[in-house]
Structures are given as C-alpha cells and as structure tokens.
C-alpha cells in the first residue's frame, strides 16, 4: 500500500541526507519526495511517498523519530486530500 508521510524537521545542513539515508538503510524505495520551508522559521516540511505494508509504515515512523533532527512525523495516507 502507498503511504504518505509528512515529516517536520529542523532546517539544518544534512538533514535531507539523514532522512533519505534512513530509507535506503532500511530498504524502502522512495516513490516521491518534496521539501520546503514551513511558516515556522527553522522548520522544514518533507512529504515522502513510499510503498510499504502497515508494519513497514509503523517501523519507518519509529525509525524517523530516532533521527535527532526530526520533530514530527504524520502518516497522512488515510487522510482525505484538500
């Protein structure tokens, strides 16, 4: 199943690499990824789409939280689009 994660991170050098590296390290294939500023200074928002099962999505979220620069992770797969 396709999962869409919204990941709020500290806007610091190398953070995108840490997040992308985690997907590679745990053998997830990224379908799409976008990064941009948020309305809050110093916080970036990543939207990452990945094809995985429920267990995989749960572990991915847990592993994202282990990254020190990650502030918040939301799995919005089940949320209706605007």
């Amino acid at each position, binding site marked *: 199943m396709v999962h869409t994660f919204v990941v709020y*991170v*500290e806007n610091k*050098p*190398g953070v995108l*690499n*840490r997040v992308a*590296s985690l997907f590679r*390290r745990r053998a997830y294939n990224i379908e799409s990824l976008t990064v941009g500023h948020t309305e809050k200074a110093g916080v970036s928002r990543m939207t990452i789409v990945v094809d995985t099962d429920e*267990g995989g999505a*749960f*572990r991915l979220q*847990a*592993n994202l*939280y*282990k*990254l*020190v*620069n*990650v*502030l*918040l992770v939301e799995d919005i797969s089940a949320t209706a689009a605007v």
Partner: protein
Amino acid sequence: MIKTGAEIVWECLLREGVRNIFGYPGGAILPTYDALTKYDIHHVLVRHEQGATHMADGFARAGGGVGVAIATSGPGATNMVTGIATAMLDSSPIVCITGQVGSKLIGSDAFQETDITGVTLPITKHNYLVTHAEDIARTIREAFYIAQSGRPGPVLIDITKDAQQGTCKFDWESAKPQLPGYRPDLSPAPEDYEKAIAMIGSAQRPVILSGHGVILSGATRLVKDFAERAHIPIAMTLLGIGGIPASHPLNLGMMGMHGEAWVNHAIQEADLLLAFGMRFDDRVTGNLKTYAPTAKKIHVEIDPAEINKNVRVDIALLGDLGEVLQELLPRIETRDRSEWLSHIRELKGDSAVRDIQNLPDSGHLYAAHVINDLWRETRGRALVVTDVGQHQMWEAQYYHHDQPRSLITSGGLGTMGFALPAAIGAKFARPDAEVWVVVGDGGFQMTMAELATIVQEKIDVKIAIINNGFLGMVRQWQEFFYEKRYAATPLLNPDFAKLADAYGIRSFTVSERKDVISTVQEVRQHPGAALIDFRVEQEDSVYPMVPAGADLHAMIRRPAPIWETGSDE
C-alpha cells in the same frame, strides 16, 4: 572568558566528568592536542584508532560512564569506523571526536580530508560537523546527553581545524542542549500495564528473556525480584549475561544459537515470553516462523523501532526497563509454577553430565577446560573481556558470571579484535577489577598492537589466548556445512609467548590440562600484565548449535563423551 575552540573541547570534557581519553594525534586535531597540556585529563596513546574506539567502548561497558575517543581527520577518522559500528550495535555510549580540515577546504579533497559525518551516518546515534568555535560547547553537551540517554549509542563530533583555532566567549551554562526533536523518555499507557499484568497472571509456562537492556537500565535487582515473586525462569542473551547471577536457581542460562538445549526448548514450549531489554536478534530466535509458536509476547523496550521488527508481540511496554518494572512489580501476583519449573529441570536431564567439562584428562586440552578452570580460580569474580568466535561462546557457557558488567563482549557486530583494546578501556574504568582477556589466536592478531599501549600505560591486564591454529568458528561452519573444506581458516601463528616477551610482558605457554591451574595461579600473582598461550584442541566445536536460520529447537547436540563411545575421536 575567551577561549580557543581547542580549549573549549577540554573545558567541556572536564565538566562532563571525563578523566581518561583514548586517542591518536594528527595534523587536523593538533590544536586540540596542543591545548591538552593545560588540562588534567589523562590521554592514553593507542596504536591504532580502532583500538581507541574499542577502549572507549570497554570503558563505558565496564561502568565508567561515557567513553571518549579522539583522532585526526581522514585515515584517523576512518580507522574508527569499526569501533563506532560495534558500539552502535551493542548500544554502548561513546563520544568520538575527530579533527577535520579547515572549513574553507571542505569538499576540496584536501590532504587527509574524509567526509566522516557522511561515512558514519548509519552507524552513529547522531553526529556533528562543527565549523565554528562558538558551536563546540553546545555540541559536546548535546553529544554526551544523546550518547547516554534513551537507548545509548555512539555520537561523533567532527571539528574543523579553524574551529579549534578560533576564539570565542566560553560560557558552559548558556551552552545548553537544543534538541527539540529528541525525546528519549517514554512511558507505557496505563491500559497496557493492565493487559500485561493480566497476561502474566494467567501464564502457565512463562519465560523471561533478559537482555543487555537489563544491565544498561540498572534493572538487574528488579528483574531478579520480579522473577522470584512470579516464579518465572530466566533465559539470557549473550549481552544479558551477568544481569542475573548465573548461580540463581531461576536462571536457565544463555539462549539462542549456542544456548543450552533446555533453555531453547523452554522458550519453544513457553506460553508467554517476557522480553526485557532485548531485541529478538536472529542469533537468539533462529527461524522466525517456528519461534516460540505457542507463546504470547510482552516486549519491554526503550526503542520503539524494535517493536514488531523481528517478532510480532502482543503487548509493547515502551520505556526504561527499570521504571516499567518498578510499576509492574508490586502488581504482579505470586504464583506457584513448580510444574513448569520441574518440567524444565527434566529437559535439562543429564545434559550436565554429558558436558565436556566432565571428561577425564585424556591428554587433550579443551578450551572449555581452560575457561572453566579460569572461572574456578578467579571464583567467578574477574571482569572478562572476550573477542568473537568459539572462545566467546565457550566463555559464555563455562565462565559463570554472577555480577553485571563482568562480561564485556562484542555481540551485535561480532567484531574480531575487540577484546584486547576493550579490556584496556575496562581497566581504566575499574582499576581495582581483575581484568582477563579471553581471545582467539585470530582475533588477537587483529589488534595485538595494543600490547604496546598496555606496557606504556603500565596496566595490569591478563591475556588468555585460546589458540587452536584455526579461525575456529569459521572452521566449525566449514566442518558442519561445507564438508570440511577448510578454505583460508588454518593459521600460521607467531610464538605468542615470545611476542609478549618482546613487549616486556610476562608470558607462558600451556598445552596440557594439568598445567592450566598452576599457570593461572602464577599469572594472578604476577603484579602486572601477563599472557598465556593455551594450545588447545585444533578441531573442537561449540555445542549445542542451532544452524543459522534453523528452528530454535533443532540443535546439533554435543557428541557423546569419550567413555561412552569408547573412541578417542
């Protein structure tokens, strides 16, 4: 107070309680080394940066707090990689500081430039590249906090040469950690406690799986109280050894690939597994499809990413093991489980009698004899540091540890060459402990350069080489699974006693069983480092053994003793 970045490094380390540091100087870290002369921190000069990381790791595991290693840029930093990965896999709190080329040169392939934060990204809990003196204090404080909180792990700080040379105002108080995304403190939901208590109460055949987390959390006493109160037997992982005294009647011993048969059978027959600070590694579960098929599972774990990773669990209690057990303990009912316990005693049966340890002296010197004699002579009170391979498993089986942090070994990564440097670090953490290195002839030669460090630091570490002339565990796999085709496992070794002599280390060679005890006694009385080269059986194997990926109950058992078969093979 205006200080250089280099001075700030030492000011901060002192404030973090660091008194010993393990390292090797070089160009990009020279400003920091130059400033060291002004500070009361003891620097241990290693012979290879890998040794520095294992020493920091051994220091931390022996209970010394966060271990610190320091090295220069480029090759100095890359030599640390194996030690960092070792600490990562075994959740050991270390901080590694590396010099980096000047910030203006980064990305230019300058002399001794390596992207060490990139290289160590997947093998550190977190890492930093610091390019301004102003950022050093806060970074070091964050690194120490991250390394030892939550699930511990290694943190690397790469500091450019100009950041070390630059000056700024040093203010420890205002350099507080700023980690908005880091939340190591977790606690389970109240309803999960209720469910767990009910599940434990109704279990007929429960087993506690006691892991490294028991020791890291300082929860050894609580686990023992819990087991005694509920009458639940305990199986240990390799890194869990020492968490519960080996002599405790509820302690079954080590589980997994080289665990005793009754331990693995108990797990396979259990109706409830209580996983305390362990992560269901493939070396303890065997085939996941047939693992503990009738058991419900409760996982008490500090790292949410470990939940349902290998084994699906029924209840996860996320948090510090000690805190969770403090909550659970008074609410657990005392229950009679004598039927289950006596069933496990039956499983144990005559296994102890079949043990190699009971063989009469047939002129052969078995590693198991050596380790069991070492246990008896040291009354189980030594701090033993093992390497990786057959001797490591024999040590786990035949040296009975009653104290936490009395066995230090590389479990997750299985790093050969770990033992000798880790033992040096352990000795710095616990100078009064009797430290023994138990190491194979293969692994010893990977880091034996650190013999010089032992001599230069004048420290008292005893070394027992279990020398079988093979890379023994690989040879065993070749014997069992590759029809004895011994590709690249026979070793042509130097005379280890002569080698030790060259360093001025007292040395002995033992090849007969009758000489083991007297030599160990002599070495224990010798006031300084000593080495014994034990020339043991060349083609002995570790039993029982669950082949990789096989069912946990499908063990290759110990062959019958010689007096039963009438043969000497």
